């Protein structure tokens, strides 16, 4: 079985966000694999270790810099990579179209992705890819079992835990609680340098949405902070809750 994993390169989650010329500035920002995608890479490697997957291919659409994200996934244990050169400002539709075209050429048995990108927070691209390819999809999974041409996935749904079965090929997106991604070993990092990465151009498509303005949220002003004996502190906090917030006590 061939497993393909979509990895997006994103800002380090700790990065301070600043605007420059009305756009989000990436100057001096450390770039990482989207944490949800890192989990998907780990999931794919574990499928390989269990003998279920034969090959793990990582696919990323973005600037030349996204090669680093691919190399990191290769160092974790993926076999080869594909970089689709695309403007990082591409919208969800453009990204889905470009990724789906590359996936179609690869014809994998399973497509894994993160369920959301930590930067744009869209949660759209994997489901869009599934629609383009005419494949079933399941989102926000915390476990997957593959057998008899089917994937049985456990998801964090609203109000409970859902188990969904789909035929494969399918597009499956991961939640971070699925697994704990490994750190690449020194050996892995050395080997990653020799693993093949193909570079292709993105299929052209028109954007379907436009960001017309970026801004920073109004800075939240810190309120009062008290450091007193527990009974005094509790009384003051209780007073604030009753009189300012106006909570109801059952």
């Amino acid at each position, binding site marked *: 079985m061939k497993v393909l994993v979509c990895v997006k390169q994103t*800002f380090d*989650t700790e990065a*301070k*966000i600043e605007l420059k010329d009305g756009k989000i500035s990436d100057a001096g920002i450390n770039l990482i694999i989207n944490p949800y995608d890192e989990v998907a890479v780990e999931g794919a490697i574990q499928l390989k270790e269990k003998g279920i997957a034969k090959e793990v291919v990582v696919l990323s659409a973005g600037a030349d810099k996204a090669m680093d994200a691919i190399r990191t996934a290769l160092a974790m244990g993926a076999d080869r990579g594909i970089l689709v050169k695309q403007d990082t400002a591409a*919208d969800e*539709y453009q990204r*889905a179209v470009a990724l789906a075209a590359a996936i179609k050429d690869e014809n994998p048995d399973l497509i894994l992705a993160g369920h959301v990108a*930590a*930067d744009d*927070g869209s*949660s*759209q691209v994997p*489901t869009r890819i*599934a*629609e*383009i390819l005419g494949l*079933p*999809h399941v989102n926000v999974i915390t476990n997957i079992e593959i057998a008899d041409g089917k994937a*049985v996935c456990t998801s*964090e749904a*609203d*109000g*409970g*835990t*859902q*188990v*969904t*079965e*789909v*035929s494969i090929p399918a597009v499956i997106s991961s939640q*971070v*609680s699925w697994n704990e991604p490994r750190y690449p070993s020194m050996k892995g990092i050395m080997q990653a340098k020799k693993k093949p990465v193909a570079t292709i151009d993105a299929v052209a498509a028109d*954007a*379907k*949405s*436009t960001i*017309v*303005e*970026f*801004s920073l*949220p109004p800075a939240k002003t*810190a*309120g*009062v*902070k*008290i*450091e007193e004996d*527990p009974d005094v*502190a*509790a009384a*003051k*906090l*209780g*007073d604030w*809750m009753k009189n*300012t*917030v106006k*909570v*109801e*006590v059952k």
Partner: protein
Amino acid sequence: MAGTWVFVEQRDGNVRKVTYEMISKAKTFGDEVSAVVFGKGVEGLAADFAKYGADKVYVVEGDVFANYNTGAFVAQIAAMIQEYNPNAILFAHTFNGRDFASRLAQKLEAGLATDVIDAEISAGKGVFTRAIYAGKALAKVEITTSPILATVRAGVFEVVEGAGAGEVVKPAVAATDADVYQTVKSFEPTVSARPELTEADVVVSGGRGCKGPEGIKIVEELADLLGAAVGGSRAAIDSGWLGHELQVGQTGKVVNPNLYIAAGISGAIQHLAGMSSSKFIAAINTDPEAPIFNVADFGVVGDLFKVVPLLCEELKK
């Protein structure tokens, strides 16, 4: 153009509050507002939507709609879009809502703004505000593809009552079992007597500072005194002290209560992403430098094991 549609988020006839929030917001666009409900035995809900101002209620009943499944829901709504031509459709930004909206958007080759916290819709144009980079920045997104599609964050729009005609419309059923490509093998509901996280007026959350189930119990006692939902940081969830559905933050739920109380939570950016837009925030933490104090309206530097039980006593007075 037949106004704004609000897709009703419900399970077994229990409607999520975000549905009413969306109807109330849609009313401000000045155009006709319709609720769209798919399910089995859901017609009785129509009056409910009229109460919040729905002019029309599209009711689609059938076995294939009994539980959410992407294939049948997309096939059905796509046929209805063809027939009735809505200007815009709003979905809840939930597990099901974002799944539905994303697949529909791609089928229509349309734009979609997800997890929106503000919306302005006019004929043929939607302008939406979204939080990006875990809430560290905001983006205004414009959508002009038809219909205008968005998923809406729970808890940001106020519910306003307003009588609507609530005229029931029964569109032709266009989906069949052949459209279903996901088989739900099981659904294990989380049972809790407490309100749902994203719908609660007050949320009390515990973090690693609770040190274990005993500390969580203290947090729960405060929550029950306030009729609040209980939440947790990822550290508390990963330690197994609370169920995964109670995680607040980027990976978990985004909450917008009137009051959020963080006990023993440091305030990492991924946690703030899920609660910093709460109206009031209180924090109890032993570390005066904890970043949670930067967003707290009322911070107590202290031991939650001491302060919280005393606070409960105080509130009971």
